[in-house]
C-alpha cells in the first residue's frame, strides 16, 4: 500500500509542478524587469520594433507583448489579466476599458489608419475606385460590420450610397487579406497598413472616400501597471519622434 501511496503523491505532484512552471516566466536574472504591453494585432510589427528600441534605451527592461484583437484584449483585462500598457485599434474598445475602470490615466491618440482596396498583383480586374467593387463578376471580401474594419467599410458605403455585395464578411482584417493574397477573392477592403505590409503580394488602390472612416489608435497606462514610470516611458516612446517614425514607415498616419 505504501508503494501505491508514494506513487499517487508523485502523480499528483506532476500537474502541480507543471502548472507552477507555467507561471514563473516573469522573474528573470539580476534586476531585469518586464513591461507587459497589450496591443492590437495590427500593431504587431511596429510595436515589436518600438519594444526593441525601448529595450535598447532601458537595458534592464524587457518588453513582453500580447497581440490580439482589441476586444479580446479588453475582455482579458476585464477578467483580471495584468499588464502595464494597453494600445487599442479603435477608440470604442479603449472607452470600454475606461468604463471598466482599467485605466490609470487618460488615453492618448498616437496613430490613425484608413481603408484601402487590395487586389491581385497588377490589378488584373482594373479596380480603380470604391464603386468599382460592385462590378459584375468581381468577388469582393470585406470585414464583418461587427469588427472595426467592417464598421469603417460600412461607413464608407453609407457615405457613398453604395451597397457592396461581398462573398464573405470576415471577422478579422488579416482574413480579408489572406483571401486576396491566396487568389480566392478578386478584391478586398483592408487598412492601409495591411496593404503596405503585404508588399508585392497585392496591388493597392486608394480611394478618397476613405477619409470618412478614420480609425484612431489610443494608448493608455493601466491601473494594474507594476511600474507606472516605465509604462509612461513606453507611451512617451510611442508618441515621441522615434515611435512615430516607425509607425509612419508602416503606413500609419498621425492621429
Amino acid at each position, binding site marked *: 500500500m505504501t508503494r501505491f501511496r508514494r506513487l499517487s503523491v508523485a502523480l499528483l505532484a506532476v500537474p502541480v509542478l507543471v502548472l507552477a512552471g507555467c507561471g514563473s516566466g516573469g522573474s528573470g536574472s539580476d534586476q531585469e524587469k518586464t513591461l507587459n504591453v497589450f496591443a492590437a494585432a495590427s500593431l504587431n510589427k511596429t510595436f515589436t520594433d518600438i519594444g526593441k528600441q525601448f529595450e535598447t534605451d532601458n537595458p534592464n527592461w524587457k518588453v513582453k507583448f500580447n497581440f490580439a484583437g482589441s476586444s479580446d484584449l479588453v475582455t482579458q483585462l476585464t477578467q483580471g489579466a495584468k499588464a502595464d500598457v494597453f494600445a487599442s485599434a479603435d477608440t470604442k474598445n479603449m472607452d470600454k476599458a475606461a468604463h471598466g475602470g482599467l485605466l490609470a490615466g487618460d488615453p492618448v491618440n498616437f496613430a490613425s489608419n484608413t481603408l484601402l482596396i487590395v487586389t491581385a498583383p497588377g490589378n488584373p480586374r482594373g479596380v480603380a475606385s470604391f464603386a468599382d467593387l460592385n462590378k459584375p463578376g468581381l468577388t469582393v471580401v470585406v470585414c464583418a460590420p461587427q*469588427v472595426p474594419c467592417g464598421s469603417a467599410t460600412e461607413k464608407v458605403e453609407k457615405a457613398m450610397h453604395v451597397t457592396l455585395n461581398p462573398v464573405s464578411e470576415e471577422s478579422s482584417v488579416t482574413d480579408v487579406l489572406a483571401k486576396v493574397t491566396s*487568389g480566392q477573392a478578386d478584391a478586398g477592403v483592408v487598412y492601409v497598413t495591411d496593404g503596405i505590409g503585404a508588399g508585392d503580394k497585392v496591388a493597392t488602390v486608394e480611394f478618397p472616400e476613405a477619409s470618412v472612416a478614420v480609425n484612431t489608435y489610443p494608448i493608455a497606462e493601466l491601473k494594474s501597471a507594476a511600474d507606472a514610470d516605465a509604462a509612461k516611458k513606453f507611451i512617451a516612446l510611442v508618441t515621441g519622434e522615434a515611435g512615430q517614425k516607425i509607425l509612419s514607415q508602416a503606413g500609419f498616419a498621425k492621429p
Partner: protein
Amino acid sequence: MTRTSGLPRWIYVPAVIGAVFMILPLVAMTAKVDWPDFWSLITSDSSLTALELSFKTSSASTVLCIVLGVPMALVLARNDSRVIRWTRPLILLPLVLPPVVGGIALLYAFGRLGLLGRYLDAAGIQIAFTTSAVVLAQTFVSLPFLVIALEGAARTAGADYEVVAATLGARPTSVWWRVSLPLLAPGLASGTVLAFARSLGEFGATLTFAGSREGVTRTLPLEIYLQREVDTDAAVALSVLLVAVAAVVVFGLGSRTLKAGGAGGW
C-alpha cells in the same frame, strides 16, 4: 450496479481531477448565461440562420463521410497490401492536424488558384465562398473519425463470416450488403455520430477555406466567434445551445453505440 473490482483506490484521485477539469468549464459557461434573455438571444434571425446552415451542412458532410468512409474503412481493415499500409496514416492525418491547417491545405487544392481548383474554375465550377466549401471543409476534418471508428469495428468483427458466406457461393457484392454491413452497424452508428458532431463544431477549416457570410457559409461556430466581438451574452447563449445540440446527438444516438462499437475503434 457492478462494483469495479481490482482498481486501486488512489486511481480515483487523478480520474476525478480529470473529470472536474472537463466538466467545470461547461458548468461555468452555463452559469454565465443570461437566462431571462436566453430565448430571444438564440432565436434572433442571424442565430437561426446559422443554426439551420450548421444542420444542413453537417448532415450533408455526414452523408459524404458515410458514402466515402465506409468503403475506405473496409479496404483499410481487409487489405494488407503495402500501398494501403502507407496510405493509412496519410488518411488519418487530419485527426491530429489543426483545422486551420486543413483549411489552408484545402485552399491550395480546391481554391480558385489551387491544384485542382484552377481546372474546376475554368470549367465554371466555383467552390470558394459557397456552402459546398463548408461541406468540403467539414468532410475533410470528419472523415477520419468515421474511418477510424469503423475500421476498428471491422477488425474486431473479423472476416470469418464474410469468408464463410463466400464459400457458400455468395457474390462479393451480396456479402458486402448482407454480411459485412450488418455486422458493422454499431461501429457505423458511432462513427456517424462522431462525424456529425465533429462537423457541427467545425470552425478553423471553414473560416480559412469557405469564408463567412450569413446564410451561405457562416455556420454556428463562426456566428459565435463573430458575436463575441459585439455581444458576449449572445455568444455565450449560442455556445450553450451548441453544447446542448452536441450533447443530444452524443447521448441520444451515440452513448450506447459509442461504447459498443466505438470501443474497438479507439
